[in-house]
C-alpha cells in the first residue's frame, strides 16, 4: 500500500517537472521568435546560423549587438521579477504583493528621476551608468526602509505591507515633484524610463542580471521547504523550528537584489511580479521546490511575449515593453482568475 502512495507522489512530482519543462520549451520558442522578429526579419535557420557563424554581416551585427541582448534581458528580467513577486507574496502571505505594490519600483523610478533631473550620482560611476546605479540604489534603499519599519514594529506581514505602501506613496509624490520641476526634455526621458524598455540592453548588463538571478534562486531553493512552511502561518512555521522573522529578512534581501537589478536596467515593468507567480501556482501548487523555477519561467514567458508584441504591433517601431506586458497580461490574468482553480488564497 505504501508503494501505491509513493507512486502517487511520484506521479505528482513528475507532472510538475513536466509543467516546468513545458514552460522552459515555451521560453525557448519565444526567445527564438524574439530573435527573428524586428525591422529586419530573419528566418529561424538564418538566426541560428548567424548566431554561430557570421554569414550575413548586417544580420550578424543586428542579432549579436541588438536582438540577443534584448532577448536575454527579457528572459532574465522577467524571471527575476517573477521570482521577486513570488517570494514577496509568500513572505507577506498576500496575493497582491509585488515589487511594484510595495514601492520598490517607485523607489527605482525616483532614483532614475534624480539622475535625469539633477545629473546626481549616488555612487562614483561613469556617466552612462548614472541612471541604473541610482535606480538600483533607491530600489535597495526602499527595501531597507521597509525592513527598518519591520524592525521597529516586528516583521509581521501586515507591518511590511503597510510600510511598503506608505513608502510607495512617498516616492510617488517625490517623483511627481521632480517631474513638476523638470524640463520638457528631461520629463520625456523620465516618463520613457518609467514605461520600461529593453532597448538599452547589452550583454554585460544581461550577465549581471543572470548572476544575481542564479545566486538568489540557488539560495532560495536551498530554503524551499522553510519558505513553503511560511504559507501555513507564522505560528505553525515557528512550531516547525523556523525562525520566521529571520527568514523574512533573508528573503527580503534576496527580493531587494532581484528587483533592484531588474528594474535598474530596463525601467519599471509592473505586471510580471504579480502575474507570473499566480500562473505558476495554478499549475504547480504551493511547493517552492517547483514554484521557484516555475515563477522564473512564467516571468520570462510574459516579458518575452511582451517584447515580441512590442516589435510587431506597429511595424518598424518599438513600443515600450512595460505597456505591452500589462495590456496582454491583464486579460490573461483575469482569465486565469475567473476560469482557473478557486481558493488559491
Amino acid at each position: 500500500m505504501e508503494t501505491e502512495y509513493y507512486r502517487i507522489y511520484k506521479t505528482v512530482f513528475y507532472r510538475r517537472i513536466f509543467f516546468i519543462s513545458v514552460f522552459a520549451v515555451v521560453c525557448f520558442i519565444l526567445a527564438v521568435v524574439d530573435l527573428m522578429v524586428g525591422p529586419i526579419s530573419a528566418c529561424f535557420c538564418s538566426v541560428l546560423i548567424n548566431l554561430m557563424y557570421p554569414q550575413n554581416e548586417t544580420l550578424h551585427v543586428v542579432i549579436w549587438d541588438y536582438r540577443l541582448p534584448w532577448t536575454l534581458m527579457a528572459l532574465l528580467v522577467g524571471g527575476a521579477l517573477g521570482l521577486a513577486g513570488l517570494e514577496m507574496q509568500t513572505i507577506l502571505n498576500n496575493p497582491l504583493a509585488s515589487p511594484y505594490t510595495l514601492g520598490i519600483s517607485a523607489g527605482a523610478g525616483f532614483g532614475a528621476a534624480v539622475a535625469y533631473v539633477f545629473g546626481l550620482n549616488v555612487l562614483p560611476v561613469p556617466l552612462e551608468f548614472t541612471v541604473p546605479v541610482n535606480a538600483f540604489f533607491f530600489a535597495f534603499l526602499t527595501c531597507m526602509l521597509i525592513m527598518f519599519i519591520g524592525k521597529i514594529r516586528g516583521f509581521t506581514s501586515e507591518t511590511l505591507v503597510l510600510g511598503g505602501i506608505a513608502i510607495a506613496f512617498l516616492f510617488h509624490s517625490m517623483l511627481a515633484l521632480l517631474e513638476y520641476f523638470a524640463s520638457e526634455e528631461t520629463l520625456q526621458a523620465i516618463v520613457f524610463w518609467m514605461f520600461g524598455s529593453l532597448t538599452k540592453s547589452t550583454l554585460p548588463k544581461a550577465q549581471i542580471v543572470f548572476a544575481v538571478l542564479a545566486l538568489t534562486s540557488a539560495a532560495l531553493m536551498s530554503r524551499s521547504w522553510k519558505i513553503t512552511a511560511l504559507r501555513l502561518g507564522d505560528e505553525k512555521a515557528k512550531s516547525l523550528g523556523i525562525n520566521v522573522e529571520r527568514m523574512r529578512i533573508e528573503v527580503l534581501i534576496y527580493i531587494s537584489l532581484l528587483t533592484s537589478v531588474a528594474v535598474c536596467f530596463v525601467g519599471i515593468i509592473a505586471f510580471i511580479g504579480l502575474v507570473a507567480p499566480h500562473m505558476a501556482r495554478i499549475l504547480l501548487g504551493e511547493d517552492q521546490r517547483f514554484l521557484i523555477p516555475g515563477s522564473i519561467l512564467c516571468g520570462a514567458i510574459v516579458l518575452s511575449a511582451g517584447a515580441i508584441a512590442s516589435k510587431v504591433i506597429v511595424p518598424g517601431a518599438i513600443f515600450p515593453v512595460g505597456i505591452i506586458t500589462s495590456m496582454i497580461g491583464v486579460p490573461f490574468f483575469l482569465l486565469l482568475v475567473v476560469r482557473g482553480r478557486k481558493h488559491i488564497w
Partner: protein
Amino acid sequence: MVTVRVEDVSFCYDRKKVLDRINFTAEQGEITAVIGPNGAGKSTLLKTIAKIVQPDSGEIFFDEKRLSRMRKEDVSRIVSYLPQDNVIPGILTVFEVVMLGRIPYLNWRIGEEDLKITVKVMKELGIDNYAKRYANKLSGGERQVVLVAQALVREPEVLLLDEPVSNLDIRNKLEILELIRKITKEKKMTTILVLHDLNLAAMYADKVIILSGGRVYARGKPYEVLSEDVLSSVYGIEAEIRRNGEKIQVIPLRPVKCDGKRQF
C-alpha cells in the same frame, strides 16, 4: 521520551500578566488536559512549552534539559504543536500538508522514510482516501484531522494540541481523542491538550490543570479536581457532577456569579 516540568513560569503581554508563576509536571505516557475559561492563558502556556514565546521568568525542563538553552531546531524535533487556528491557505494537497509536519527532517528530495511515515499517519487517522484533495477545500472538521496528522507525523516526544477537536462532530472528536490516547500510551509521549469540553477532559485526561486568570487554580486527576465548587469559582456556572467511581460526568446547569478564588 521526556517529562515536561514547568517551574514558576510567568509571561506578560502588553503589561497584562497572562501567566503567573505556573507550576506543573506532565509525565510521559500521560495526557494532561489544560482547561479553563477564555483568556485564562491556556494557549500561551502551550506556546511557551513549544518555545514560540519566551517566558519572562521561570523555566521549562524537558527531563533535565532547560528549554531556554535549547535551539529552536532541536525543540522542533522533540515537540509538535498544533495551534488553534485551522486555516490552511494556498494550493496544498492533504498529503503535502501532512508531510510539511516533517520539515525538520526533510531534504530537497523527499526520502522513502518520510513518505512511509506520512502514509502511516494518514491511514491511522482515516484521511488517506483524500490524500490528493486540496486541503483548503475540505470542511473545517476534515481540515482539523489533517492538522492533527501534521502534528503526529513528526513522531514527537511531546505533543501539544490547542483545542484539537473543537471543529469536529462528536464521532470525530471521540475517534481523534481515542487515537491520541492510544499513541500517547504506546509511544510513551507526553501529551498536553487544551480542551474546552470538560466531559472530554474527564474522559481522556490522566491529569487536569485548571487555569484561571493566568494562574493554576487546581491540578490533579479529573475526578479529584472537577467539582461543583471549582466550576462555580472558575467558570461562574452551576453544574451537577455525576460520579461513578473514578468516572465523572459534568452537566452544566446555569451561569452564576464567579468569585475567582485560588487553591494553588
